[in-house]
């Protein structure tokens, strides 16, 4: 039986991290930030096109179309079963697999999978698969649509999608109701497919929120492609440096960071005493306000800090908030790992239990329907260290990425001074992230 509460699925929250651990973590982050200012390289080094090509057999396996289509088939089949179970399975969230698979396996699991393998969802998305199959069946080119995607649209459609999903996950009442989620997913999928037939498959890369999310995280994968198309091992920070800012990307990253921060806030005692006994729709205005406020704080601090970095040496350069958005991505990933790691490792064990009987008819497809979750599989100490570690590592990587960008945009002294505001904001994000883990 699974329970639902707080952010989609749960009822269990992590213990607060030990105070000494939080202190050391924060201290290390600050120390390393100052050290980076003083000691990091003086000329830009991070590039997207550097890497070591994978050996032939490995590259052939990882890049093989057979593997790709097997994965696509599995993901499509799983999606159809889960959406079917949303409508035909148990009406309550305890035994229906869809809410769990959506909020835990998919939404949280996308992070480690994309970190490891790159733009995973772009490769296996069932929406892309359906679009591909429909195009092949009708004899048209999947990449071409009826019209061109306007460049000014950028990532804004994906921003709307991710904002909607996060509001659903963090604020909406009955957010784990299977039927409602089934309807939401079908409507979302249909809208995406309409967009793709209008604008071609490139629509997904700008408007499908989960693909944008996965591709963004996948920028930090050790696997990438060289300019000549060969699969290669590369420096994750180099991949990050290759992010091309477009309209809406800053908003997307800001919302990711702000919403994870809000998730942490809702688990604090301060929030629970503030929220009082409001349940259901009565709790929505406050929740929405909190979510918007968290995203707003991140937005304002980030934009102010990057604008204050000074005037770049190149007059035709990217507006500054866009130029530095890639350095916030590791911090957002660190936050996500800190908040959702234990959910994946503990409650995630429900996956094989629920998968055995998705339609609640007593089936036992994998022989696992009577398994139970082992909540002591990872110790509280391991969880706490992972949480602090993720925040600190994310911070350090963000600082390094920002430093490299600053010295490529600014000349001489301006490059160092330009980093101060963003560095201060990053330290604030990290201290805030650590403070949230204290649970007070």
């Amino acid at each position, binding site marked *: 039986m699974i329970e639902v509460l707080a952010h989609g699925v749960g009822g269990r929250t992590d213990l607060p991290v030990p*105070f*000494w651990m939080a202190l050391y973590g924060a*201290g290390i982050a600050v*120390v390393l930030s*100052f050290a980076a200012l003083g*000691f990091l390289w003086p000329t830009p080094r991070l590039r997207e096109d550097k890497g070591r090509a994978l050996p032939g057999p490995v590259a052939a396996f990882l890049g093989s179309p057979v593997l790709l289509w097997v994965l696509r088939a599995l993901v499509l089949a799983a999606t159809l079963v889960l959406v079917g179970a949303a409508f035909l399975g148990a009406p309550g969230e305890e035994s229906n697999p869809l809410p769990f698979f959506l909020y835990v396996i998919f939404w949280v699991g996308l992070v480690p999978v994309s970190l490891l393998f790159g733009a995973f969802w772009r490769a296996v998305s069932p929406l892309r698969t359906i679009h591909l199959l429909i195009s092949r069946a009708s004899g048209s080119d999947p990449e071409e649509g009826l019209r061109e995607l306007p460049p000014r649209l950028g990532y804004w459609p994906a921003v709307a999608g991710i904002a909607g999903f996060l509001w659903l996950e963090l604020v909406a009442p009955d957010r784990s109701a299977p039927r409602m989620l089934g309807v939401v997913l079908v409507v979302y999928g249909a809208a995406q497919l309409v967009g793709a037939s209008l604008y071609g498959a490139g629509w997904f890369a700008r408007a499908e929120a989960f693909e944008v999310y996965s591709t963004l995280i996948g920028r930090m994968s050790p696997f990438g492609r060289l300019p000549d198309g060969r699969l290669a091992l590369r420096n994750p920070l180099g991949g990050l440096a290759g992010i091309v800012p477009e309209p809406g990307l800053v908003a997307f990253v800001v919302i990711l960071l702000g919403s994870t921060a809000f998730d942490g806030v809702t688990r604090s005692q301060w929030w629970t005493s503030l929220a009082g006994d409001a349940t259901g729709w009565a709790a929505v205005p406050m929740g929405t306000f909190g979510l918007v406020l968290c995203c707003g704080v991140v937005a304002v601090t980030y934009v102010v800090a990057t604008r204050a970095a000074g005037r770049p040496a190149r007059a035709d350069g990217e507006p500054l908030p866009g130029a530095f958005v890639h350095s916030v991505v590791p911090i957002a990933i660190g936050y996500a790992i800190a908040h959702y790691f234990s959910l994946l490792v503990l409650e995630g064990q429900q996956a094989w239990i629920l998968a055995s009987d998705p339609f609640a008819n007593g089936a036992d497809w994998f022989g696992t329907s009577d398994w139970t979750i082992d909540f002591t599989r990872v110790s509280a100490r391991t969880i706490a260290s992972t949480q602090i570690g993720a925040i600190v590592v994310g911070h350090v990587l963000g600082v390094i990425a920002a430093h490299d960008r600053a010295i490529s945009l600014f000349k001489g002294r301006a490059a160092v001074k330009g980093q101060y505001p963003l560095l201060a904001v990053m330290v604030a994000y990290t201290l805030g992230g650590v403070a949230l883990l204290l649970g*007070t």
Partner: protein
Amino acid sequence: MRTRWTGTAGALLALLAVTACNGDGSPSASESPSVTPSSVPTTTLATTEPTASATPSWPAGCASPMALPAGATVITATVSGGKVTPPRKTYDVKLRSIVRLLVTADVADEVHLHTYDRHAPTKPGCPAVIDFEAGIPASVEVELEDAGLHLFQVRAR
């Protein structure tokens, strides 16, 4: 050159601040709970009731609970008019200790202890009792099921 000095100075200052702040608290020493900087008292250790005898004034006509072993913790809450008293709190209990939840409600509902997945019915006049061993090192929610009312949290560590 100046930035190198700024960088080093800042790093040393931060290092100093961390060690001074941590004081004599070493990793092994400061496992104590509730080192919360906020001024609002947010966690309390639940009261330990005398054992062997059942809770005094147990209502007639309600199945009386079993005797609690020594050292067990009892957490009580009352629900009336859709509000919980004391207002939603977090209780710290020792890991693997025996805990009793005692919820008195003015409606017929069900108390649900998450993660351990235990249920107990309430009705006007008869409190719900859940006895369990707090073996999971986490913070778990206790709620009134149908009302969707969060009662309190129990943290075992």
